[in-house]
């Protein structure tokens, strides 16, 4: 089975699809591990939205490619170097502050991005973006509220959030290092970055988290299928069954 994409639009969309499925998987790891049951349900809901979003995006990709493979093939039969998610979302759930900071950073980015895609010339994509935007707005609100609680809660929670923010910000630079493909399908890449940076600065300040100077890290681009070490482990768990039983249908 050849899973190489031929069309530019699907090469662009798979970045969004992969980002959704990997973040969905990370959030699913939180199932039965939240600070209380209600939050377990909240994170499960967001995870479900992400898996649903990924599935729709993969379907679009299969359609554009006129493919004989399925969304599941794309999820379960590609290796690390064939995945194109932003590295931010594959970062582990070190603690609840990581979960929240990662989600907040992602949702802000995704909200502007899908907001722009609502005017895509691909009507199906535009329609999907409208639906997805509602989910992201909710998830963003949920994460933003927790940023306040953790940032302004106790000294410990503030420190933990600061630590998570410091670590995760290192994976932001690559997101805005746009290539030609991005510029073709995102109407306004410049505003995607400024909207994100302004909103993050405002939020961090409001919740008493310092926005430290960070040196641009030497990390290779997710657009070329580069990842952190966490990715292979995540995939080996996620893809275990279809890999171990290639002939089975599930």
């Amino acid at each position, binding site marked *: 089975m050849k899973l190489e994409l031929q069309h530019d639009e699907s090469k662009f969309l798979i970045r969004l699809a992969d980002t959704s*499925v990997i973040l969905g*998987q990370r959030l*699913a*790891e939180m*199932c*039965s*591990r*939240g*600070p*209380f*049951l*209600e*939050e*377990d*349900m909240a994170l*499960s*809901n967001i*995870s*479900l939205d992400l*898996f*649903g979003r*990924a*599935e729709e995006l*993969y379907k679009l990709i299969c359609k554009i490619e006129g493919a004989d493979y399925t*969304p*599941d093939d794309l*999820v*379960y039969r590609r290796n690390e170097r064939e995945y194109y998610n932003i590295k931010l979302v594959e970062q582990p759930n070190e*603690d*609840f502050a990581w979960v929240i900071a990662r989600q907040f950073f992602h949702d802000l980015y995704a909200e502007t991005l899908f907001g722009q895609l609502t005017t895509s010339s691909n009507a199906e994509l535009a329609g999907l973006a409208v639906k997805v935007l509602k989910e992201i707005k909710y998830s963003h609100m949920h994460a933003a509220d927790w940023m*306040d*609680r*953790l940032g*302004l*809660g*106790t000294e*410990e*929670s503030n420190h*933990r959030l600061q630590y998570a923010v410091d670590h995760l910000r290192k994976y932001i630079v690559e997101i805005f290092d746009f290539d030609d493909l991005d510029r073709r399908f995102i109407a306004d890449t410049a505003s995607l970055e400024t909207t994100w940076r302004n909103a993050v600065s405002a939020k961090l300040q409001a919740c008493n988290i310092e926005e430290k100077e960070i040196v641009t890290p030497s990390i290779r681009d997710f657009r070329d299928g580069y990842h952190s070490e966490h990715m292979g482990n995540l995939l080996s*768990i*996620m893809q*275990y*069954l*279809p890999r171990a*039983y290639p*002939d*089975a*249908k*599930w």
Partner: protein
Amino acid sequence: MDKFEQAFNEIIEKDLKVEPRDWMPEKYRKNLIRQISQHAHSEVIGMQPEGNWLLRAPSLRSKQVLLAKIQDEAGHGLYLYSVAETLGISRQEMNAQLHSGEAKYSSIFNYPTLTWADMGAVGWLVDGAAIVNQVSLQRTSYGPYSRGMVRICKEESFHQRQGYEIMVQMANGTPEQKEMAQDALNRFWEPSLMMFGPHDADSAHSSQSMAWKIKRESNDHLRQRFIDRTVPQAHFLGLTIPDENLKFNEETGHWETSPFNWDEFWNVIKGNGPCNRERLDHHKKAHNENAWVREAAAAYSSKVETSVA
């Protein structure tokens, strides 16, 4: 007998519902708290054996279905905790009782889930057994519990189907998949029958619960209903029920089984099942390691919310 006790007896007799503000005998309240908190803990601990396969679910569809199902279980735990709270026990107390071992949960969740077929068997057999029990509890005499059961039964109607769908897929799949399906049935058959509890004659709380109409049908009665429903479903799958003595009694119209291994049942209840320790440790760990999150939420709330209403 004072007028309150009389009113209570009348409610029970006439098959009406007892409500939180009504007078009730202390033992009725205690009995309810025991049963409802056990029910709630079962939903919550039950998230773990399924969560064990969530990250390895083999398709986007099965992953979403399983996550939605586990999420329902969290929700049902919450419904039940809030029902228990109407009886004057707090969530924190119930959690503490779970952690100390004072409160129990269904023993079935102390069995490990070893293959993906177990997601089928758990949905089909474990949820199937739970549903038989819960449908009966819709008629329980405590109003909030009864209404909670109605809601839960409605929501859980997809759970058993989800499990059976996996069993169909596996039983008709590759030889390896079929083997996994049979193996899952072999391991979960007897434990799921024991979910209904001891035989009526050996059940400590049964008779009083029946008299107060907390329980509406006996353990053995419910168990038999489940067996009669499930055996033909197994045959449809082409799987073998792991009981050499299983036979259909033409006269009674019921399937008859071998005696169960009650020694194992009691041993697992006492804490010596394959995963008792692991399940509790998992729950405690999540609770304890996130104490700082709850403290942060409390501190934040006291800073920003000066008035309640």
